[in-house]
């Protein structure tokens, strides 16, 4: 009896439907796989199973699924993809918690390189655009940093969790081919660096860049970003904070012609 259960257990499979694409300019297509179930599987381990035995549900041997991943613990953001309609990290998407068939596709907000690999380069461009750093480089001694209150630190800690995964861009209705919106995450990063006592020295520069074309103003308050963010970053609070900064900034600029 127990031997029989073991056999049934072994035959249990996971049904996956991928949206695949062979290259940046190729047409996307669907491909289904049934991979043997193991306890505590996640989407990455299911795809590794396909790598080991790249045979689709029709029994054809095909090229294994391509994806990106590094940390496998939801801190690098590389493995973001759309799983059952929601953009999220594959490494923390547990098969046991997903309804089957599991539908997996790339985050189409970004250019698809191959299968689930997308080019998130625009996020890096956005960070450069809004000057999301603190310029303290130099050879001379800058002295000790200013003291910071624990409350400030906690606020910034939340904002600093961003891993540029791209989920908030995928979730935002205003980030698409028709718009130049750089995305909610960039607003969070400006809030982070502007809130830093040393970073605040370059506050105006960042705010100025954030309200240039495709910036903060493109937010339409659907608030999907804060719901979708895997790190629970208070993105909408950051957006409203920067809206207040931008209001002040606008009047200051106007009154100092």
């Amino acid at each position: 009896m127990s031997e029989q259960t073991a056999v049934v257990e072994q035959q249990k499979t996971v049904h996956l439907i991928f949206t695949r694409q062979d290259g940046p300019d190729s047409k996307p297509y669907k491909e289904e796989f049934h991979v043997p179930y193991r306890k505590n599987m996640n989407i990455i381990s299911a795809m590794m199973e396909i790598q080991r035995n790249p045979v689709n549900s029709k029994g054809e041997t095909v090229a294994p699924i391509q994806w990106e991943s590094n940390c496998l613990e939801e801190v690098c953001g590389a493995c973001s993809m759309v799983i059952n309609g929601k953009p999220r990290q594959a490494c923390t998407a547990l098969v046991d918690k997903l309804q089957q068939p599991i539908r997996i596709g790339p985050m189409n907000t970004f250019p698809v390189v191959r299968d689930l690999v997308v080019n998130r380069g625009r996020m890096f461009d956005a960070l450069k655009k809004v000057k999301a750093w603190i310029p303290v480089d130099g050879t001379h001694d800058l002295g000790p940093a200013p003291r910071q209150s624990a409350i400030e630190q906690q606020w910034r800690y939340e904002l600093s969790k961003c891993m540029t995964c791209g989920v908030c861009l995928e979730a935002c209705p205003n980030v698409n081919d028709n718009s130049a919106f750089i995305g909610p995450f960039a607003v969070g990063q400006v809030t982070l660096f502007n809130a830093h006592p040393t970073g605040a020295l370059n506050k105006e520069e960042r705010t100025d860049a954030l309200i240039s074309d495709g910036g903060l103003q493109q937010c339409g308050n659907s608030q999907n970003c804060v719901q979708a963010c895997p790190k629970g970053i208070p993105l909408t609070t950051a957006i409203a904070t920067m809206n207040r900064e931008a209001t002040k900034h606008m009047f200051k600029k106007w009154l100092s012609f």
Partner: protein
Amino acid sequence: MSNQTDFLNRRLHSLLGVIPVGFFLLEHFYTNYHATQGADAFVEAVNFLWAIPLLPVLEIFFIFIPLMYHAFYGLYIVFRAKNNVSQFGTFRNYMFVIQRITGVITLIFIIWHVWQTRIQLLFDSTPTAHELAMDTASILSNDVTAILYGIAVISTVFHFCNGMWSFLVSWGITIGPRAQLVSTWVWIVAFVVISYFGISSILAFNDPNFAINVTALQ
């Protein structure tokens, strides 16, 4: 230096939605609500408005141009969004979509409404406030028209109230989740109250007695 015209256009769109267009909406509902006190009160309210000096200038610069800017820039915003409520069925995402749908309904309604109650009147030689009251009553005595007006009123009030919620975020007045939640409730109440005023006015004009009273006044 970076280009900030996009920001200024968007902020102008947001501001004009409240001042003067939102303000005008409230004024318009206030004037029309006089109809519930009878034809007399409505005629008096209209005459009060008509006594404002330079009224055409006010109408063009305080209502028409700001509304057109808000409406057409609004359409541009509407068509640039890729709505995704089927993927993200949250309250705010629904509000986002409904804000856009009600904006379009409002635009269609305003064109029809201005045509019916304003442009067509211009064809008459200068109408009196009585004639205006009479015309409005005859337009709204048609139940189908009254229902369409009712839908448009609710849609416009929704757009204004949810727009106010979003205005407070866009200008950085309601920042945290708690402030935004309180604001949601405040604007839900405002939506109910303003809709009540609007619908009562339509019902007043729709009432056959209203037209009889206007005729009696003349």
